[in-house]
């Protein structure tokens, strides 16, 4: 919106209050989960409903870290999600560049095919994928899970990057190539730096999609490579739900992504397009 600063009072109503409302909406259930995790598990189902913990306790977190393999699982998730993000980004960026900048036979069909891949319910893909992974000897390995996650993140990530590439005029590429760059060089030197926000958004998308994935993680892996989502599911039993551990685990589970994002979010809005793009 308009860049010029308005009267501070007006900004409270048009900016700070709505922003606060949205943040509270986003945080509300999470905060409630946090409060629950700080209560003693034995007090969770008393007749009187209490919002705030009567006694604040860290026992759930202590149990989570000491008595379960939670940290271990967190580590596995980090490896798988980071791997998926790096592999997925590199593959989808090059593919998206091809789709955005070139016209070639089969382009339309391939673009639609990328969409079709994600339209198919993955529950029906699981058995053939299981057989493929078994054949490659990749069951219960990080690489196997990374590849499996890439199969459904790459198509979407490619489409996302296409939309960000399309926003950069081709005149920039051409100018660079007139100056002697190869097409790939133009991509690296000129276009990519301008799409850093898009790359970050896409990277976060891939990371989160892989981080939250459950079906492949539980079926294609589980023993040596046990991710966070699988570990959390073990807290939901047949006739017992370990609410204390579950809420503590849920609270912790969202933190790595949030912290990661906090580190890179400045680059998301480093809109340095002034001067680079002539109207």
């Amino acid at each position, binding site marked *: 919106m308009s860049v010029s600063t308005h009267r501070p009072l007006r900004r409270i109503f048009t900016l700070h209050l709505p922003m606060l409302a949205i943040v509270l909406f986003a945080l509300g259930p999470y905060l409630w989960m946090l409060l629950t995790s700080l209560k003693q598990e034995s007090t969770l189902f008393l007749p009187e409903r209490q919002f705030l913990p009567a006694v604040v306790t860290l026992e759930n977190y202590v149990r989570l870290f000491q008595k379960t393999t939670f940290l271990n699982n967190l580590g596995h998730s980090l490896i798988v999600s980071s791997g998926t993000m790096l592999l997925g980004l590199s593959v989808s960026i090059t593919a998206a560049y091809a789709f955005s900048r070139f016209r070639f036979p089969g382009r339309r069909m391939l673009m639609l095919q990328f969409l079709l891949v994600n339209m198919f319910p993955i529950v029906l893909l699981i*058995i053939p994928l299981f057989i493929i992974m078994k054949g490659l000897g990749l069951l219960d390995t990080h690489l196997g899970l990374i590849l499996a996650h890439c199969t459904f993140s790459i198509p979407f990530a490619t489409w996302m990057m296409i939309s960000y590439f399309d926003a950069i005029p081709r005149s920039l590429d051409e100018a660079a190539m007139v100056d002697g760059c190869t097409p790939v060089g133009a991509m690296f030197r000129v276009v990519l730096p301008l799409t850093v926000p898009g790359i970050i958004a896409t990277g976060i998308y891939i990371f989160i999609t892989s981080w939250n994935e459950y079906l492949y993680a539980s079926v294609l892996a589980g023993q040596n490579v046990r991710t966070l989502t699988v570990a959390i599911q073990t807290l939901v039993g*047949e006739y017992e739900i*370990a609410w204390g551990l579950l809420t503590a685990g849920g609270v912790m589970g969202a933190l790595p992504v949030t912290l990661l994002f906090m580190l890179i979010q400045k680059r998301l809005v480093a809109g340095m397009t002034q001067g680079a793009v002539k109207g």
Partner: protein
Amino acid sequence: MPIKLRSLLGAALGAAVLACGTASAQQNVNFWYHVDNAENTKLMDELVKTFEAKNPNIKIKAENVPWNNYFDKLFISIAGGKAPDVAVTRLALQPQLLEMDAIEPITKQLAAWPGKADLANNLLEINKATNGEYYYMPLQYVAIYLYYRTDLFAKYNLKPPATCEDFLEAAKKLTLPASANGGTELYGFGMRGGKGGHDNWGPFVLSQTSFAPDALTSPKAVAANSWYIDLLRKHKVAPPSASNDGFNEIISAFKSGRTAMIFHHIGSAKGMTEALGDKVSAVPVPSCGGGRWTYFGDESTTMFKTSKVKEASWKWMSFLGESENNLKFNEATGQLTVTKSGALKVPHPARFVKATMDSLAFAKPMPLVPQTADFVSTVWPTNMQRALNGEISSAQMMDAIDKHFNAK
């Protein structure tokens, strides 16, 4: 010729050495199980250690698979060609596993097993397959009984219900608005209408009918089902959320004093006593229309045909069936031990053990046919919920179930 003989002997000797070497090489047994409390995997680790100390050439790789897609994962691995060696399983799956030719008979091993005599009576018989062979080694069991609030019953001068009529009367007396109950609404019966709730429905309906063709659609069966539906729709002794309530909801409502009676089994007894102490007790389910039925919940181990370490697998299965080891496993799951010697030492509060034992006379598993698994996960919940919401009638619901089991 002599050269040939020598090389032949050499080869034979080499093969013998190789065979001996393989026999003492390490064998890995992949074992899948599930425990509700993730902290209890430590107990499994201890069991594995004890076993490995006794059997130095066998390594057990035990995996705690999350309950919510335990059977999905099992079927996918069987279909994908990489089943585990041993897994915890249930009777409801036996027909399907047999049709898929996935499991290995253990009849011979059982016959030669000394621990067989210590198994509780007729547990093996219940687990026997229709073709006469044994595939399952019993691991633990439960029977559904009725939890009730002793303090509320005492307050309103009620006795734990022995018949359906008693049940309804007690439920009505214990359904009170918040104003009459110290600020908290109370419902007499925490009905479980979501998935798994067929064991709430069974005592009221299956006590008066069976799954035989046309039995489910008889007037008596339809009337019994109607009576059950009326608990919610007419008498309103169950909370309005009943049709979607699963285990978690009925337990939390009962623990927080919002319902007075629920059906469940000894697996939750520990949590109940922690939350309610002496205010909770249990009795067998009431008898209805002259009959009595409750759900027998079993869990056993089975061995898969694709296993390459069948002997080692059997050793592990029988190990878990031995008195002390079985008790330890049950500590992790909260269910009841299968051995007679172990039954004398169970850690559960006595009143819940008694309720379970007293139920054994009329506790039955669901029919041992392939349709049962689908009945439990789809046919029953969907039809029950629609009937509870008034979308279909009792007769229509029974008809759908009958069609499912007895389609011509």
